[in-house]
């Protein structure tokens, strides 16, 4: 594994030289992290008591400590951190001072929520007067205007209202969400895109702008155009468990293996049929391909015309075969033989991946300030100019107050005594 140095200067990368003020809570953590990985100087601004995520378990080694929250540590890398009380007039004045030199501000709050910048008189109009070139991005549950703009929302309600929960789950049970917050991930990346696009607008046309990201609306794309197709198909998205519906039949997609589950779908088309044929050859080598499977003309296979009885016959043979093999055996065969089959990995299996090891994807991040070293997903992308990767560990509370406020010529000790930082 490669090691990330603790105090690498935050200047290299595609976004080197840009400074971003990050006031987001959990829904926006990923946005600042990605911008920081791309080289921007991201300054996390927390209230004096720290972000709520710091108080959430699980904690590293089980020690309940705001500097050891795994959620905080996981998605706030590549950021510096300061505290600032923007509920005071002096705090707001200092925030505006920071905005004069910054390129972008990101927050995650609905327009009327008490922790939003707008509620403190620091909405986009106020910031634009201070710095017309500033980009401001707000991630909110439903967007900044409209009938639900004052409604509360979190991951589960955004996934529900965005239409990705109704089609997820078993037909005989409630619709279900992913156990980690995918709405926050989608919106976090979407916000990072919004900031970069608005910076491009500023570089080419001279002005900043406001970027309004809706958690609900970012969760429509995962439905892969199903909602827009409704008027043409009448399909509301009914749940199909770990499977899918073809033209005339239900198909399984997640199958029990000897030690877990694998994903394999009997979908057709030129890109997939060779994989089906290769799977049947593999089954045959193991003595588990019935004659009817071998005899079938797979070149004409179409999942939209095959009947349920045919699917059931094919799938009973596939099911028996998958149950006889481990996930690792099946995935090794998939890589060697171009089968479109994949393991439904746990974190432990992902950490053991030979492909990720070969790409040195996981990195050890030394965090001497906390006295810990943790294994992280490293570069989210590799480029010919360098990797978009972790530049420093997540900040400790107020870790960079001295650097940031000192650079503004402010007296850190006095500000702390006044309850501003």
């Amino acid at each position, binding site marked *: 594994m490669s090691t990330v140095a603790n105090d690498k200067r935050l200047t290299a990368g595609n976004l080197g030289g840009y400074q971003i003020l990050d006031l987001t809570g959990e829904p926006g953590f990923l946005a600042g992290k990605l911008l920081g990985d791309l080289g921007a100087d991201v300054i996390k601004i927390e209230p004096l008591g720290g972000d709520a995520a710091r108080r959430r378990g699980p904690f590293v080694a089980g020690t309940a400590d705001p500097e050891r929250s795994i959620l905080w540590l996981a998605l706030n890398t590549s950021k510096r951190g300061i505290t600032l009380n923007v509920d005071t007039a002096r705090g707001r004045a200092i925030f505006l001072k920071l905005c004069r030199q910054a390129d972008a501000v990101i927050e995650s709050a609905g327009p009327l929520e008490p922790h939003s910048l707008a509620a403190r008189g620091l909405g986009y109009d106020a910031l634009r007067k201070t710095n017309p070139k500033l980009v401001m991005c707000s991630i909110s549950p439903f967007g900044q205007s409209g009938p*639900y703009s004052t409604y509360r929302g979190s991951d589960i309600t955004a996934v529900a209202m*965005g239409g990705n929960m109704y089609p997820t789950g078993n037909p005989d049970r409630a619709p279900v*969400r992913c156990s980690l917050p995918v709405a926050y991930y989608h919106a976090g*990346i979407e916000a990072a895109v919004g900031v970069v696009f608005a910076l491009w607008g500023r570089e080419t046309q001279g002005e900043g702008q406001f970027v309004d990201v809706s958690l609900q609306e970012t969760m429509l794309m995962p439905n892969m155009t199903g909602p*827009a197709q409704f008027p043409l198909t009448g399909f509301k*998205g009914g749940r199909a468990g770990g499977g899918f519906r073809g033209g005339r039949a239900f198909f399984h997609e997640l199958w029990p293996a000897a030690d877990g589950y694998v994903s394999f779908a009997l979908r057709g088309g030129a890109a997939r049929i060779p994989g089906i044929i290769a799977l049947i050859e593999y089954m045959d080598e193991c003595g588990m391909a019935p004659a009817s499977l071998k005899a079938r003309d797979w070149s004409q296979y179409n999942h939209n015309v095959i009947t349920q009885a045919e699917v059931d016959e094919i799938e009973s043979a596939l099911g028996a075969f998958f149950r006889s093999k481990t996930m690792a055996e099946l995935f090794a065969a998939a890589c060697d033989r171009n089968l479109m089959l994949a393991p439904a990995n746990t974190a432990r299996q992902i950490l053991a991946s030979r492909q990720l090891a070969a790409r040195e994807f996981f990195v050890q991040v030394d965090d001497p300030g906390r006295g810990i070293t943790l294994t992280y997903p490293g570069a989210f992308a590799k480029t010919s100019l360098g990797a978009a990767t972790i530049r420093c560990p997540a900040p400790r509370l107020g870790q960079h107050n001295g650097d940031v406020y000192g650079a503004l010529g402010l007296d850190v000790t006095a500000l702390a005594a006044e309850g501003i930082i």
Partner: protein
Amino acid sequence: MHALFKGLKILEFGGGAAGPFGVRYFADHGATVVRVESRQRPDFIRLLRLTPDTPGAIDASHMFAMVNPNKYGIALNMSHPKGPEIARRLVQWADVVAENFAPKAMAKWGLDYDSLRALKADVIMISTCLNGQTGPDRNYPGFGGQGSAISGFNHLTGWPDREPLGPYGTITDSLSPRFVALLVGSALLHRQRTGQGQYIDLSQVEAGVTCLSENILTCAANDDALGRMGNRSRHAAPHGAFRCAPQDGDDDRWVAIAVHDDADWQRFRQSIGDPPWAADARYATTAGRLAQVDELEDHVAAWTRTRTAENVMHTLQAAGVDAGVVQNFEDLINDPQLAHRQHFRKVEHAAIGTHLCERGGTRFSATPEDIRMPAPCLGEHSEYVYRELLGMSAAEYSALQADGVFS
């Protein structure tokens, strides 16, 4: 201000959603995008619902039309000896080349980054396949379904006593496009400042695992593998989807409710009329609610079952409680908030007729995106692109066409 990417030229190879949805971000913001396909190997999403009787055949794919508006479509047979040479001329036209084939394809045609850079020094190229461009499993031929499985989303979605599920759709296909837009956008900023192009290798699995960093850290730091929790939260209760009253004969109506802290719980109690069961002192704290979550959520479900999902949402939200209808695809079409944001736009398509197209999750105050033209039928803009954009003579165009290069 004018459209953000007016004047930017993007050449796109590949198919599916992961690449094309990403390039659409630029097309919607004014970039000129040329999408390369061929009759021999059309984008596979043109075939997803295809039967021998589909009117309009491969040009009538709903999904293709909804992923690819604002793009020009050309036919170019890369298996023809002259195909790669024409592709190289298109590279000289482009600022950005995007592709999401398996790694060997572009190199086979002499269109790897080093070849492209020799043609155009400051070109930006992005490749996004499932496993990345290096490593022993780089050529593994996966789609989004496998990406969801490998990066951990399937394992984390569903019920502890059942098989892993989705999430519905192929989640790396909705995460990767945003990574594509972020990386190409940041590369353009870098080029603007330095004059330098770059090559970007985005592994869809690595991007997915990065999102799930909490999953990795929990395992690596504490040797604890997260699993499927249904709709439960480790931090809040009640937290789930609850069945509501049937509407118009549809008994598959649900509402999501999340009570995040003790103040929320008091608001929730009041808004449901403070029934006797809710006065139970064990429910007053998050720890107590989590410890009794099964019986607590049974009470909540009994309350929602006699009310419509919309009624529950509006009642709870009026009291400041986090709640939302578990909307189906029809609900989304009628959602007043999405209507306010004009999420669905009407498009006229030659082979489909009128269809809806969705927008992304972002509104820009000064440079709104737009849908200017429908997605292309296969090869629809060949003549325009080759003649007008590449400046090919009529004679050369006709000769190449007769030779089968544009098929």
